[in-house]
């Protein structure tokens, strides 16, 4: 028991230390590092949200980028209507949740294949819809906003959203609700037999995930002041969420954060060297992880520990 507490303490020191480090970096660093930290915090949020659905529910989503795009568009539209920043951001998150409700109600009762394709289809469909309604979204040409906040403020906000999500997730998974989620992932039928409302729990988790992805999308929009359908519903963002989560370890709390940090550092080096084919490496990395290291870094580390102790 004492060993457990010792371990827990170190995990928490590492988590809080990483958050504080990121904050300090944004305060003191040059704009390049600030923008790097913005992307890091954003992708950490996205991959944690993906992991919540893909890792803890066992439903692989290939269209998570749609919540990001919806969040970005809704925030932009409300800002243009003259709303102030906090309600615009929140409504971005909430409308993402409504999207999640539409997708979730139709596919979360079925097996994972249907969910996967349903989300993929929804993201592609939204891309066409966003290009079609020209008078609301600006069509294929994109949507411009006057700059609202500076880079540093944006990065701090993004970092705060991420930190809140991270801490919330840590406590959520320790709580009764977290145990329900894990029970359902391990054996949905047994959980249903014990009287857990499986569908409802799944839907709630999906909502939470969509909400934070929507917030991240809104903040991205505020940072770049421009969005068009091709970026807002770009499938490569979904791929990045997948790869980062799988790299760090799917179904763990800290895995996505570790994966994101590692991936962002590697990709910063890679795409400067190979601008044309670095996306291909992403796909190849995904295949290699799925075939040879299914648990990601967390699993490799555990195996190494077992190997060292034996």
């Amino acid at each position: 028991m004492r060993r457990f507490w010792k371990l827990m303490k170190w995990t928490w020191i590492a988590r809080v230390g990483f958050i504080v480090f990121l904050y300090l970096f944004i305060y003191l660093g040059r704009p390049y590092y600030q923008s790097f930290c913005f992307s890091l915090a954003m992708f950490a949020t996205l991959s944690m949200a993906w992991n919540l659905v893909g890792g803890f529910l066992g439903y692989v989503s290939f269209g998570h980028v749609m919540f990001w795009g919806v969040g970005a568009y809704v925030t932009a539209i409300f800002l243009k209507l003259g709303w102030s920043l906090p309600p615009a951001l929140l409504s971005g998150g909430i409308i993402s949740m409504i999207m999640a409700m539409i997708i979730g109600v139709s596919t979360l009762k079925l097996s994972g294949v249907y969910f996967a394709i349903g989300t993929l289809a929804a993201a592609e469909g939204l891309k066409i819809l966003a290009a079609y309604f020209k008078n609301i979204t600006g069509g294929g040409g994109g949507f411009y906003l006057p700059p609202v906040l500076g880079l540093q403020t944006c990065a701090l906000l993004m970092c705060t959203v991420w930190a809140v999500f991270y801490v919330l997730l840590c406590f959520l998974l320790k709580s009764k609700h977290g145990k329900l989620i894990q029970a359902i992932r391990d054996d949905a039928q047994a959980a249903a037999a014990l009287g857990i409302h499986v569908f409802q729990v799944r839907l709630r988790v999906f909502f939470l995930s969509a909400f934070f992805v929507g917030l991240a999308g809104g903040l991205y929009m505020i940072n770049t002041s421009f969005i068009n359908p091709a970026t807002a519903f770009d499938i490569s963002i979904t791929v990045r969420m997948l790869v980062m989560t799988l790299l760090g370890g799917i179904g763990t709390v800290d895995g996505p954060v570790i994966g994101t940090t590692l991936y962002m550092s590697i990709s910063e080096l890679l795409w400067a060297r190979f601008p044309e084919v670095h996306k291909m490496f992403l796909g190849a990395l995904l295949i290699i992880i799925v075939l040879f290291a299914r648990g990601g870094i967390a699993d490799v580390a555990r195996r190494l520990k077992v190997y060292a102790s034996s």
Partner: protein
Amino acid sequence: MVLIYGNLLAHGILLGSLYALQAVGLNMIWGVLRVVNLSHGDMLIYGAFMGYYIWSSFHNPFWGLIIVPLLFICYACVIFPLFFQLLGKEMESLLLSFGLSYVLINAGIYIFGPQFRSLHYLEQIINIGGVYLTLNKIVSSALTVAVIVGVFIFLKYSWYGHMLRAVVEEINLAAMRGINTKFALFIGFGLAVVLTGVSGLLYSLSYAFSIFSGQQLLLKCFAISVLGGLGNMLGSLVAGIVLGLSESVLAYCIDTHLAELLSFMVIIVVLLLRPEGIFGGRR
């Protein structure tokens, strides 16, 4: 007025038969390996690009009917062990096919470039009682129907077809009867991959395509499979023609953008109301 609808009907049916062949490939891989192959659309587009290059070098894309199957069998030989290793693991094989799709798209951008391509072959216009059709559409649809019928006959009556169906039905029992299950699954997988390549080739005869069209074609194939019931071949045949018809009617009557949206609507609505497909079948 009647003539316009006659034209729409004819084009819809021709387009629908192409869709049906594309969906048959997706459905077969689902039936054989229990994985929705998310790289299906990109394989199709690779077949289409092969058709384009064969046309531009030999001036006759029908050489592709020999070359494309050979190349796709080689591809199947490379890919099959990966999928076989993950047999029965739904999530992992989905992720694998997704990674493959991503690699194929980006390699394709590098090799073929991002432009739209189209073939100009057999473009004579034929007038059948006021319905105007180009010859290439008729030829590609006729070939499509021939290929589908051929595959049905192969699966229903040939020895390999019996073996494959036995393995898909009950893999352990088939293994006990002395069937080499891995080989049987490879036959099914290879057949599906070749079908996909050939349907891409036939698609390239009459429609323009770019490397990015793969995603949309995949989703259309999935809409067809969901509508007809996943794993139900005959259902996907009917559903393909239904989708092709309704797309061409919708594009004429309302808007072409909404016609593109139709397949996504179909997926969401069918999953919501009747997930086993309108023609029954298993979930």
